């Protein structure tokens, strides 16, 4: 196993996500349906038929890239991000959002727990975290990158610490956004490593601050956890996070 490098370059996945306004399920159907729509179009021949064929092509395109030009032009957003923002907007204050994700990592629960329990390590794979300072055995200060260069800070405490199995934390009184989370480490069958399951809840406040915070935490939280966990997996398995950021290209 490789040693863990002290500095890792985050993956440039977030820029792309901003381009996606087509939700996942819808994207897959797009790929499959694109073919059928276009076929029907061609059978009808000429005029309307060709328009349908073109629509079919567009469906395949948006299925693969997650971007629909028509939606973009019409301001429609059916992606997770769009749905979450709409959901957040409709939430009464203090109602929690909950997301959960699981990844299998080919390391022992001991290794993975050990790395995670050193909370200072979290920003190495959690993209929106700037740093975590450990204050004492239980308490820590979390600093996240907010929109437009502003930082958002809160204190958290560890509620439950079951070595090599589970860590549960929650934000302390006074956090802009009350949040709590649990990470569980369970051995996978047949020596396949460890199933790492993260669940997070947070309650965005109402009003303008709520919107800002929602943009930070709520920008597709499912996707964010998935990305963070994927980075965690790569860091623990490969010792680094794959990236192409900074490589040459013929652009510009």
């Amino acid at each position, binding site marked *: 196993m490789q040693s863990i490098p002290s500095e890792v370059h985050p993956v440039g996945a977030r820029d792309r996500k901003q381009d996606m306004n087509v939700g996942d399920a819808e994207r897959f159907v797009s790929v499959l349906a694109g073919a059928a729509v276009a076929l029907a179009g061609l059978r009808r021949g000429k005029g309307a038929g060709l328009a349908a064929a073109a629509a079919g092509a567009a469906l395949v395109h948006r299925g693969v890239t997650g971007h629909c030009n028509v939606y973009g032009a019409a301001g429609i957003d059916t992606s997770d991000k769009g749905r979450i923002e709409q959901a957040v907007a409709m939430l009464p204050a203090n109602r929690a959002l909950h997301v959960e994700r699981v990844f299998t990592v*080919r390391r022992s629960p001991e290794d993975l727990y050990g790395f995670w329990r050193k909370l200072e390590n979290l920003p190495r794979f959690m993209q929106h975290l700037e740093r975590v300072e450990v204050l004492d055995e239980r308490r820590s200060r979390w600093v996240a990158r907010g929109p437009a260069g502003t930082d958002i800070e809160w204190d958290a405490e560890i509620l439950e610490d079951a070595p090599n199995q589970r860590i549960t934390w929650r934000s302390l009184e006074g956090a802009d956004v009350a949040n709590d989370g649990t990470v569980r480490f369970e051995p996978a069958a047949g020596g396949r490593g460890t199933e790492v399951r993260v669940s997070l809840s947070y309650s965005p406040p109402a009003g303008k601050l709520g919107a800002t915070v929602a943009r930070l935490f709520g920008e597709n939280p499912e996707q964010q956890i998935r990305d963070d966990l994927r980075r965690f997996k790569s860091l623990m398995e490969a010792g680094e996070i794959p990236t192409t950021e900074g490589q*040459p290209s013929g652009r510009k």
Partner: protein
Amino acid sequence: MRALVWHGTHDVRVDNVPDPEILNPRDAILRITSTAICGSDLHLYDNYIPTLQKGDILGHEFMGEVVETGPEVKNLRVGDRVAVPFTISCGSCFFCTSDLWSLCDNGNPNAEMAEAMWGFSSAGMFGYSHLTGGYAGGQAEYVRVPYADVGPIKIPEGLSDDQVLFLTDVFPTGFMAAENCSIQPGDTIAVWGCGPVGQFAIRSAFMLGAHRVIALDRFPERLRMAREGGAEALDYTEVGNTLDVVERLRDMTGGRGPDACIDAVGMEAHGVGLEGWYDKVKQVTQMQTERPIALRQAIQACRKGGVVSIPGVYGGVADKIPLGAMMNKGLTLRMGQTHMQRYLQPLLGHVEEGRIDPSFVITHRMRLDDAPEGYRIFRDKQDECIKVVLKP
């Protein structure tokens, strides 16, 4: 540095771009001494692989000299001469440690994109669209090689670039295609496509004990090269449509059908008659992303209980796949991007011991600056072009 850059359909140019740098601790930088154009690059050239972007540097078959290594690369030194597998694999995940390198969990920084398309992601690949990572490729003067401590293989002295360059892709790909056929004594293997992958599949099938190999293509020079490799060559345009091809293969195999069939053509198969026209129209209008003509024939022709092995690349969805034939003949289908690291050392051994000289497939040598011309003649099968090697 100079590099071959994709600008759009049938528009590739050699541009000046920045030099690559070490980005991760397990990276190395290579100065490229030889690089080739692959049939897979033609799918990019023709713009059939989604998520390619203007400005992408292509190329995944390359070798060269190590000029810089990241702090975690302990097994390579500056000056080492290496060939690099086209897949980018970490060496430590479930798939890498199960010898399924092209399925590596940690090679593709754009895994989420591939997951939307395929459910799960393959390994990363050099110069092969953003779906497989968007890595800058090796048709260039220099290249950055991630996970350089587990990918590149050192080349012993005394072997020329031409002899080992194809370890980076087409030789292992043809070999895995043949290995997937589980060849038994007396077996006849049919190979669709006599491009470089097909050529190596033919020779590998014999190395693995095939009794006969029947090779299909339509270009005389490719059929000739197949014959030189020991195959019986068939110009499918002289045979006819899918049904005629199936019939002919049955006649040639005592009425049994080939024991295994290899589709070394992939998504841009050329079709004969109505079927060819149908697939072409559907692909052009993006109703399907593939033209699975060779695959259909392979499935239809294969004997009962046989194997259809698919090295030819497919990316999306295809139409009119004879599922009933697969089901009712009890076929086994094996496919995948090549598990490169599994084959590098053993195949290098075959080259060293003189059992095969992979340079037989080279028909054209050019300077990197002439790569656009190389793409054109390779795509149009002009000038009897079968494999182009470029020197930066």
